[in-house]
């Protein structure tokens, strides 16, 4: 609902008009309609919205397995898109999203809102300007994936839920109340676990701080402990190591990892001259006081960001609107950046599933010398919910 409330605030300020709402669950749709009030037409099928010529932009906050298909369709319908993270659940989906955004000349912002948040910004400018010297390693700590300790049998879907449309591109399976609405997060085929959920935030911020958006090639090796039982299949504990070259540095996803800060998740930048901690991803939490107090050295480079709202959720959307208004169509977490971030997350999961190290060629967008692993870079969608 935060997207609804953000949009209501923009509407109150006269910056947008909420013309439509969409949900495949009539109960949730009714709640959204009651929050928004008159003026917004409710729909179950997003494609009705895409047909409307009076709609300029759409905000996609559906489960992860829908992100790519809806983004591509929206781009192909000429709409600007704000899509929640992670950008995609497969690498090939991410590629299709980038292609669709470029071909249709629309702005696509991925909801990794730390990149426009003050906490991450303080950290980014401090790291880039040498607060801890050269950074050779960045580590993440994050609490474990939950376990389905109360598995139950498949059943009929609840009243009001269009299960076929909720599943969308995923292979057909019967409804199970331990899957939907939010527990999709703990299945590899849809949510991909904490690494794809929070990793999408943390990795996005880390790449920004390290000025490493262009470092698209790396090796990845994951280990993890699967849950003992239940519907959810994401690893409970996990460790993933990414090695980048030129410049050389290592990114570690630790679940639980080595908890350095006080909060449930965060990152540590390990440099020649010390370390800098960023708790959460720099959104809900402020930056480390050292980073806030950091002054650029002579010759230092400032880091730009949109700064229109204190609330970082509002600010990230404002950044997207700004990219549309100004015509450059490249918001702070443009879909290319979102895709590269999601690629890190998705390859971490593939390495875990296959139990082997992968060498990722970012230029060719393929795993080196591993045809079977390359098949897992994409997954055909269930018709008609196709890219």
């Amino acid at each position, binding site marked *: 609902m935060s997207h609804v409330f953000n949009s209501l605030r923009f509407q109150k300020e006269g910056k947008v008009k909420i013309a439509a709402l969409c949900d495949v669950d*009539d109960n949730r*749709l*009714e709640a959204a*309609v*009651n929050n928004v009030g*008159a*003026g*917004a*037409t*409710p*729909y*179950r*099928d*997003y*494609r*009705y919205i*895409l*047909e409307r010529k009076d709609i300029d932009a759409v905000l996609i906050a559906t489960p992860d397995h829908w992100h790519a298909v809806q983004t591509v*369709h929206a781009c*192909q*319908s000429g709409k600007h898109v704000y899509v929640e993270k992670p950008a995609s659940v497969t690498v090939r989906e991410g590629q299709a999203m980038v292609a669709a955004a470029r071909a249709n000349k629309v702005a696509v912002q991925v909801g990794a809102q730390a990149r426009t948040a003050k906490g991450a910004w303080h950290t980014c400018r401090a790291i880039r300007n040498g607060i801890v010297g050269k950074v050779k390693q960045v580590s993440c700590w994050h609490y474990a994936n939950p*376990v389905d*300790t109360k*598995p*139950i*049998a498949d059943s009929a879907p609840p009243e*009001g839920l*269009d299960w076929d*449309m909720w599943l969308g591109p995923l*292979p*057909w399976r019967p409804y199970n109340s331990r899957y939907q609405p939010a527990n999709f997060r703990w299945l590899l085929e849809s949510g991909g676990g904490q690494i794809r959920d929070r990793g999408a935030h943390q990795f996005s911020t880390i790449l920004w701080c390290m000025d490493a958006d262009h470092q698209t090639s790396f090796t990845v090796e994951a280990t993890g*402990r*699967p*849950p*003992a*039982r*239940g*519907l959810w*299949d994401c690893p*409970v504990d996990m460790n993933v190591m990414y090695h980048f070259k030129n410049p050389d540095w290592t990114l570690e996803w630790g679940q639980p990892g080595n908890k350095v800060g006080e909060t449930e998740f965060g990152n540590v930048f390990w440099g020649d001259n010390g370390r800098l901690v960023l708790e959460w991803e720099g959104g809900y939490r402020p930056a480390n006081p050292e980073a806030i107090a950091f002054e650029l050295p002579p010759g230092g480079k400032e880091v730009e960001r949109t700064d229109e709202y204190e609330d970082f959720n509002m600010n990230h959307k404002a950044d997207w609107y700004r990219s549309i208004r100004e015509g450059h169509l490249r918001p702070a977490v443009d879909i290319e950046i979102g895709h590269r971030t999601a690629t890190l997350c998705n390859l971490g999961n593939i390495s875990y*599933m*296959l*139990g*082997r190290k992968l060498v990722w060629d970012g230029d060719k967008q393929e795993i080196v010398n*591993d*045809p*079977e*692993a390359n*098949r*897992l870079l*994409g*997954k*055909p*969608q*269930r*018709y*008609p*919910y*196709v*890219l």
Partner: protein
Amino acid sequence: MSSDNQPISADLSEFIQSLRQAAEEPNPPPWLDVTRFGPEAVSPLAAMLAEPEIETGRNAKRALYHLVRHNSGPSVEPKRKAIQEQLVTLLEQPHACRDALWLLSEIGDDQAVDAIAKCLRKEKYREDARCALARIPGKKSIEALRAAMSNSPEDFRFALADVLRQLGEKISEYPTRKLVPTAQTTVEPIKS
């Protein structure tokens, strides 16, 4: 016993039995041990997919996926082929067909195409079969999808046409329906 009633080794039998026992955190699940076995485990695991206890079926399914994925790398080609042969036999078993199609989509080659193509004629599995053929590289799977265009029900031809176009084939009939809205809500707007 496996699903084709062949006798299995004592070691494999013991492993299969372990999948019927409840595992509790933080112990690792028993299916991880499947990597000790090869293609001989496919059939007995498939037989368990139909068992009434939910967690038993899930353990068996996870064991199958783990077995396939850990025998899919460049260095285990003979095992991959042998596992593929076993998976193809599962396509005739209703309780295992869907999983077999998706597993074959991950490791299958031309040898699996004909058997998968037969599933294009089964309404319950045709969509999964379509996806499996889309994922298996090579001309044979494309030919199988093309051949199915002429003998499939009208509504399924749109899906076949769509995947053939995604694979680079030129198909002028059956334009995509991906942007055609169909589902209606019962929720009414608030009138001003």
